[in-house]
C-alpha cells in the first residue's frame, strides 16, 4: 500500500492574470513555469513541452501580444499580464486564418509543433503584417518542426497573412475580453462579416465532392 505524498505549499504566491479572455487568480510555486501553470493548473495543454530550454518553440504563447516561450517564463512573472494560448484563437467552427491555412496546406503532420508554430506566426504578423519570406524565416527560426521540411508552413503563413491584411477589423489573437456575444478573444464571431471574408479569401481545404 502506497502512502500518497502531497506537495507542501511553501512560499506560494498568488497571481492574477487574464488567460484567453478569462480572469484567473491562482497560487503558484516560485519555480513553476508559465508553461507548467497553463498545462497543469489551467488544463490548457495546447502549449507543448518539447525541450523546456526555450530551444524548440513548441510552448509558444502570446504574453501581452508578443510570442514568448512559456517554458522560459515563470508563472509569477505573468502576474497582471494578458495571455493567449492556442485554445484562445479559434475553434472548429471559427478557425483563425492561420489555423485554416495550416489545414489547407497540410502544414500539420504530427501536430506537436503546430500550436507553437501558429502562436509564433501570430506574434510575427502582429508586428509585421506583410513579411517577405526572409522575414518569416527569421521570425520562425526558433520554432522547430521535424516533419514537414517547413515549405508548407511558409506557404500557410504567407497565405494567412494575406487574409489577415484583407480583414483588418479583426485583431486575431489579441482581442480584449470576450464581448457580449461570449466569443473568446481572437475568435471571429460566428457568422460575422470578418469570418465570412476570411473563409472566402482563404478558401477552405478541399473536401470530398
Amino acid at each position: 500500500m502506497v502512502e500518497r505524498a502531497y506537495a507542501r505549499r511553501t512560499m506560494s504566491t498568488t497571481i492574477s492574470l487574464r488567460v484567453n479572455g478569462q480572469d484567473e487568480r491562482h497560487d503558484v510555486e516560485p519555480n513553476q513555469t508559465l508553461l507548467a501553470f497553463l498545462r497543469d493548473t489551467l488544463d490548457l495543454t495546447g502549449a507543448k513541452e518539447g525541450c523546456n530550454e526555450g530551444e524548440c518553440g513548441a510552448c509558444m504563447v502570446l504574453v501581452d501580444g508578443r510570442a514568448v516561450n512559456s517554458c522560459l517564463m515563470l508563472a509569477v512573472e505573468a502576474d497582471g499580464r494578458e495571455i493567449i494560448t492556442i485554445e484562445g484563437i479559434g475553434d472548429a467552427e471559427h478557425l483563425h486564418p492561420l489555423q485554416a491555412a495550416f489545414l489547407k496546406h497540410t502544414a500539420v503532420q504530427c501536430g506537436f509543433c503546430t500550436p507553437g508554430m501558429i502562436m509564433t506566426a501570430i506574434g510575427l504578423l502582429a508586428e509585421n503584417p506583410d513579411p517577405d519570406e526572409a522575414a518569416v524565416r527569421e521570425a520562425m527560426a526558433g520554432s522547430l518542426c521535424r516533419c514537414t521540411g517547413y515549405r508548407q508552413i511558409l506557404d500557410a503563413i504567407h497565405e494567412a497573412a494575406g487574409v489577415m491584411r484583407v480583414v483588418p477589423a479583426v485583431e486575431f489573437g489579441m482581442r480584449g475580453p470576450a464581448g457580449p456575444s461570449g466569443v473568446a478573444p481572437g475568435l471571429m464571431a460566428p457568422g460575422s462579416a470578418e469570418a465570412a471574408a476570411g473563409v472566402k479569401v482563404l478558401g477552405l481545404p478541399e473536401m470530398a465532392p
Partner: protein
Amino acid sequence: MSLKFVGKNITRPDAIQKATGKARFLADIHLPGMLYAAILRPGYAHARIISIDTTEAETSEGVVKVVTGKGCSDKYRYGDNIRDLVPMADEKVRYMGEPLAAVIAGNPHQAKQALKKIKVEYEPLPVYTQALDALAPGAALIHEDSGSYWHLPGVGPKPGTNIANHYRLRKGDAEKGLRESDVVVEAEFKYPFGSCAALEPHGAIVWFQEDGMIEIWSSSICPFIIREEVARVYERPESDVRVHIPEVGGCFGYKSDITVEQTIAYIAGFVPGHPVKWVASRKEDFTSTLLGHGMIIRMKIGAMSDGRLMALKTTIYHSTGAYSDTGVHVSIAAAHNSTGAYEYPHCDLESILTYTNTPAVGAFRGYGHPEAQFAQERLIDILARKLKMDPFVLREKNYLGPGKVTALGERLHQTNGDLRKCSDIIKKAVFEKPKQEEDSEYYYGRGFAAVMKSPKGAPFSSKSAYVKFNTDGSVVINCGGAEVGQGLRNVVRLVAAETLKIAPERIHVYTEIDTQFSPWEWQTIGSMFTKQGGRAVMRACQKTIEQMKHTASQVLRCDVDLLEYDGEYVYLSSDPSIRVEVTKLVRGYMYENGMVVGEVVQACADARLPRYSGFDENGQGSMGVSYTFGAQAAEIRIEKSTGKITVDHFASSFDVGRVIQPQQIRGQVTGGVMMTIGAALFEEVRFDETGKCVNPYFSKYRFPTIKDAPLRQTVQMVETPGTIGPFGARGIGEHPVIGPPPAILNAIYDATGIEFFEIPVTPDKMKKALDEKAAGGNT
C-alpha cells in the same frame, strides 16, 4: 481506373484537432492517483556498481519510493531478437544514459530533487564508443554473458567478443568478380550517430491494477510488441496487458520496439495500484532512448571498362550501443541494401553489429538504407570519374529493373516501378540547364543519387483493419497502425471511401490505438502501412460489401453474383430498380413482420507481404519482391569565406505506384529531404572518450530550422502501379531520406573537386578543406 477520392487533396482527419491544440499526446494524459518517476543516469559509461545508497533520497519531500535495479536482470530480460536488455542497470552500467535508479514521487519536481540525494559507488571499466575499438583484441566485454542470452534463430551474439550479430550475404563470387574487373574503386565512409529528435520526447505511463491488468500508455509505434513483451516478462496472459497509443508527436523510427516502457513498468511494479508517468527530458530523449546509424562502411566496387558493374564488397562496422536488440535488423538491412539501385552479379556484403558504451541504436527513418547507399552513391560517382564516363550513363547501364536480380536473389518485374523514369525526371529538373559558374562569393555544384528501398519487416509482419457499418450508413474503421504524423489515417479513410464508394466525411477513422480493441498489427515500420494496411482496409471493406450482397440476395431473391453495390444500394445488375438500401442491410435485413435475416455488416481482414521470408545460408531471402525506387538531386552553393553550404534546390522523384493524397506525399518527401539535409550538413550525436554525450540539446544537436529549408523543392511522383498495395500504391515514408547526403556530397565535389567520405560536412570542415586545397594540399 477512375478514382473519386484517392489522389485528391482531401484534408487529413486529425489536422483540426492538432491545429486547435486539442490533440492529446502522452504528456497531456492525467489519471487519478498518478505518481511521477524521475530516473538517475550513471556517471560512467561502463562500470561495475559497487553500491547505491538511497537512504537520504527516501526521506526527501514527496517521495513515495526509491527503486534500484538490484537483482532485476535475472527476471526481467527484454528483446525481440536478442534478449540482452534489462529495465534498469544491475551489477554494471553499460552506457551513461542507462536507468540506474528511480524515484517515484507526488510530482515530477519532487522526484527530480530526490534523485540528487542518491549516492553511487562505481568501479570504472574501459569505455568504447566506436565499434572498431570494441572489436580490438583484448577489449573488455560489455556483455560477459552474451552466450547465455535467448535469441532468434539465425541471429545472435558471438560469446567472448563484443560482436552482437554478424550477417553475411553472398551472391555469386565477389572475389572472382573483383579479380576479373577492369577497374576497382574502394573507400571508407562514415555515417555517425544521429537522433530522430522528434519534437515530442518519448514517455510512458504504466499502471499495475488491482484486477491484475497492466495498463500502459506510450508514445510508441509498437503497442502489440510492448504488450507481448510485458506479458511475457510479467508472466501474464497477453490479454491482461492493455496498451494505449495516443497521438504521437513524431517518431522517425526511435519510438519503435520496446525502448522505455520496460523501465517504467519495472518502476511502476513497486507501487501497484498507481499509474506512474515518466516523460523524457530533451536531454534524456537524446541519451536514453534510441539513436540511429553509427556505421563505418568499407566498400569496394569492381566494374568493366564499358561500365558494367561486376562485384560489390561491403563491410559495415555498426556501433549498436549497449543493447543490440533493435540494431540487429538495421545492420542486416544496411548490408543487403548496400547495392543501392544497381544490379551486381557478384556480392559479398557483411555487417558486424558491435556492442559499444553508447545508447542503443535502433530504427531511424531509412533503416540501414541511407547509411549503405550513402557509400554506394558516392562511390558510383568516383567510379564514373575513374572510368571517364558520364555518371548518368554508368548508372543507367546498371539500374535495377524488370528481369534484374537483387542482392537477396529476387528477380524484379515491371510492377516494382520505373527507376529510369524517376532518374530522367531528376536529370531534367536539375542537370539540363548549364551549371552555374563560380563567382566571387560562392562555388556552385550539383549532385545526384539513385535510391532503392526494400521493406524491412518480419515474416509475420501483418497489419489489419476492422470495418463496421453503422445504421445510418456511416462507417467506423479501426486499425493497429500508429499515426505519427505521416498521415496514415487519411490513407485509411481515402482507401475505404474509394472501395466502399461513400464520402470520406462518412468514415470515421480511429484516433487512438488500444490493444484491447484494435486489430493486431506487428508494428508500424518500414514504410509499409499504405501498402499493407491499405490492402487490409480494402480487403475488410470488400468483405462488408460481400456481406451486404449476401443478405440482399436473400431479400431480393436472386443469385449473389448478379448483385452490384454502389455505396447507397445493393441492386440487381440487370434491373437497378430492384434494389435495397445499404442502411437496411447493416444490422441484417428486417422484414415487416420483424424477422431479420443476414449478418451484421462488419469485417476484419489483414494483409502481409507475400512470401516474405528469413535468410538462407547465403544470407539471401525474399522481401516479398516489394521494392521502391527513386532518384534525388541537390543544387548547392558553398560560401567561399565561411564554408557554409546552402541547398538552393532539391529534387526528388519516386515511383510510388499510386498517389493516395498528393499534399501528404509531398509532405513526406519535403520533410524527409529536410531531415537528411540536416544529416549531411549538421547533425551528429557526439560522445567524448568517457562516453559522455556532449550535445544532448537542440541548441547543440543542430537540426534544420526554417532558415535551412531549400528555396525550392521539386517533388514529382511516378505512378507505375504495384500489385500489392491499394490501387497500386507503394510506400514513401522513409525513401526521401536516402538520397540527400550522397547527392549533397556529390554536389560538393562538383563544386570544389573535394571528396568527403563522412557526414556531416559542417562549415568548419568545408572551410578547412577549401583552405587546404588553396594551399595545394591533398584532400
